[in-house]
């Protein structure tokens, strides 16, 4: 008798906790998405001023470019890390395409290329504005590599 009661109680507990587990999974997926977007916003934080210099909105400053490019080179290798959590089945809103987890090695290779170009940009600041802006274009093309393939274009 008591065994039956315990079994029933266990079943009931499991059944009622299923939605809670689902909610946990969703929360986790959402946290992963937030983290990814947060990281990319930090990348933009360092990338943005260089865009402003390229557009002539603010004066060129080689030291800022060197510093920011160095920070970007530190941040980019984190991208595959924060994308490790697979959110394909979460149904949550994200611009990250499912292909990322199908081609994780390519995704990683592309971030490595972009990282090298960020380092090249930091080095190019020694050769003056023109060289830096050329290296900056290459870095942007490196970013675009992933955006074209792995970011939703709607």
């Amino acid at each position: 008798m008591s065994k039956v009661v315990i079994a029933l109680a266990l079943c009931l507990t499991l059944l009622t906790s299923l939605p809670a587990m689902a909610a946990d999974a969703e929360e986790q997926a959402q946290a992963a998405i937030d983290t990814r977007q947060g990281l990319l916003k930090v990348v933009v934080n360092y990338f943005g001023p260089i865009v402003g210099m390229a557009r002539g909105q603010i004066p060129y400053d080689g030291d800022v470019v060197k510093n920011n490019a160095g920070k970007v080179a530190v941040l980019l290798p984190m991208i595959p890390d924060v994308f490790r959590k697979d959110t394909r089945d979460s149904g949550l809103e994200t611009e990250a395409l499912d292909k990322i987890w199908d081609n994780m090695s390519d995704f990683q290779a592309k971030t490595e290329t972009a990282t090298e170009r960020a380092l090249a940009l930091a080095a190019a600041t020694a050769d003056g504005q023109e060289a830096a802006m050329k290296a900056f274009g290459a870095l942007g093309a490196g970013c675009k590599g992933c955006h074209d393939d792995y970011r939703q274009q709607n």
Partner: protein
Amino acid sequence: MRWVRAVKAVTTTTANKTDPPAPIQGVTSRRNESEKQSQPAPKSLVWDLPTRLFHWLLVVCLAGSWITAEAGFDWTETHFLFGYTSLGLVVFRIIWGFIGPTHARFRSFIKGPAHIFNSARALLNRSPSTYIGHNPIGGWSTVLFLAVVAMQATTGLFISDDIFYAGPYNGIVSSATAGNLAGIHHLNFNLLQALVLIHLSAVIWYQWGKRTPLIKPMITGKKALTDEQMDNAITHNYLLRAVISGSVVAAAVVALVQFAPPPAPMSFF
């Protein structure tokens, strides 16, 4: 300009100075063919110079914007210029559809279902087309082309590549809206490619399948017309009003993309 005068001389003898609305043509008359064999028909002006210039400049802009879109960041600014020019061309063509010579006017080639049905029936047989300007299907494709190019150029004003470049009005829409418009820009381009492909197929079919020259008339403006079609030749290019309206449109586009937009947002701090 000698040929303009020649055309004028021909049309004035038929006492028809103002461009009359084109009569319903379509299924009848194969005289074209037999006449061509007996003696070369005089070439009459059908496509005015501004319409032809519009056509070929649009070809350049569409090809150019495709190539520059694929070519990477160094070409983005050129891509923008092609887009702005396309926008201006479309606006000019719409205006020209009201103030241009007969065959450039929407009134002459926007036709109802009966005409569309007739031209659809004549589309696949191998006899030469008897239409002087656009046939009803071609007319509606012109409108479709204008709409699709307008959509392409307009959405381009609001979107960005996420990295370096942004259209002049990217700053006034939310990034979600910009993303949706970018989606339309990319999808609509496929539609545009399909339209171009259909257009080229139709031209090839008419030119060699139906033995109705279309390519040369779009270059020289002149077609061989039968005697009774002669009244529908146009007498002049309306160059003055083309230059005036073209300049106004060009100025408006420059104002739209260069002076009116809000300053690019500083997306950094």
